[in-house]
């Protein structure tokens, strides 16, 4: 069981037997008033979205999803293809179902595919991935010791902010839950 205060972006909960994913989450609280948890929820089966505000007394069950380890093979247009590591069966997810995980789909990466009544619905990527920076502005040394970050693009096409000393061709680690830079990876 989850309490409303456990809600966060990406959490999957069950409402009236359907699995939902929290797509947006915000904690709201007037100073003297009670805490509210404002969420955007997406039904993982039919894709319907709605906004709902919960109070701290509200409780949720975990969505009944099965998770199978699969390998990412390729994508073509809107279809993302994965192969089950045990049955070698191929399954397809739409771009919408893949969601932000598409930023972290390295070739042949092993992921968890979420199934509800044997239908693929969504994906979990590893919490950390190492990727190569494919494009970065050069760092003007001595420019400033302080302050700034700069945008880079990595091999999956994803763009993020990193410290200014990161150069093109370097490998960096990303936390896929936040999409943020974690560290430079040597070698």
């Amino acid at each position: 069981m989850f309490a409303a205060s456990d809600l966060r972006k990406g959490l999957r909960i069950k409402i009236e037997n359907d699995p939902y994913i929290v797509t947006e989450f915000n904690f709201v609280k007037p100073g003297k008033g009670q805490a509210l948890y404002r969420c955007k929820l997406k039904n993982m089966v039919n894709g319907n979205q709605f906004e709902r505000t919960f109070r701290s007394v509200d409780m949720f069950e975990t969505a009944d999803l099965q998770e199978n380890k699969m390998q990412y093979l390729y994508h073509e247009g809107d279809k993302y293809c994965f192969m089950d590591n045990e049955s070698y069966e191929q399954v397809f997810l739409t771009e919408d179902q893949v969601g932000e995980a598409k930023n972290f789909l390295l070739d042949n990466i092993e992921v968890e595919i979420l199934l509800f009544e044997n239908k693929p619905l969504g994906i979990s990527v590893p919490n950390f991935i190492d990727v190569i920076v494919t494009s970065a502005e050069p760092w003007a040394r001595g420019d400033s010791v302080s302050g700034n970050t700069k945008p880079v693009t990595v091999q999956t096409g994803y763009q993020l902010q990193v410290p200014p000393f990161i150069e093109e061709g370097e490998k960096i680690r990303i936390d896929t839950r936040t999409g943020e830079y974690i560290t430079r990876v040597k070698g």
Partner: protein
Amino acid sequence: MTIDHSWKLAARLDELRLRARMIKAVRRFFQERDFLEVETPILIPAPAPEAHIDAVAAGGWFLQTSPELCMKRLLAAGYERIYQICKCFREKERGERHLPEFTILEWYRTNADYLTLMRDCEELIASIASEFGVSGFASRQGKLVIVDRPWERITVGDAFVRYAGMTVSEALAKDCFEEVLTAAVEPRLGVDAPVFLCDYPRELSALARLKEGEPGIAERFELYIDGMEIANAFSELTDAGEQRRRFEEASRERGQKGSCVYPLPELFLESLPQMPPSAGIALGVDRLAMLFAGRGHIDDVVAFTPESL
């Protein structure tokens, strides 16, 4: 796994400089007006019982949720104008505008009411703006001007009718006051210029004095800027019997919903009959820094968050 934390801290330099400059301007403002800066304990035995504010337990006592009770004991002892900038702690409050450990500015005046504090707010924030050489800042709607005074005042009752099409009594009866306030009213407040939302229902103002001739209404206001709650102020309740009843009511409500019930702050209640008519206010320093820095997230104006420790 080693994680680079330093670069994120380094990237905060501009915001932290702005914050420090802002706090310096706040201190100068109060010094020029002959307010005494005080420090009161962060670790206390009995926080003010409020239905929806949870204190962090620490060593059998609690971390303060506000310095309010000690500040008022100083008023009762004869101090006339006092202020404090301090850390406060509220359990499980975490979001774009909330940190469980945050910085409060509180100031109090004897022989004053909440109307005096509205003027203080106008002058304080205008004086910070002049320190930065600005007349306002960028907001969701474009530009928000803070130097034109006085700022608009709207009662909670009028704001609910105007922005939500329902009365406060309807919202309270349907048990949706906070939902309507945060979804329909707050986003419309202080959009082009700051606004005071004032005269709250009695049941939402545990430590405020009631308005003369309007027993259901408390002399309380909240300052809103760009849809964000910045400060909360009262004409202080000085009737010890009434204060005890409200504390007991809040404690009962806490007990019913399974929240920790705190011991009553007896020394505070004992001192209350000596407190002259007074007014006090708590202002969120982090949020004010967000506005002047033009940042939408509270994490952007502090060096550390709980998650980064």
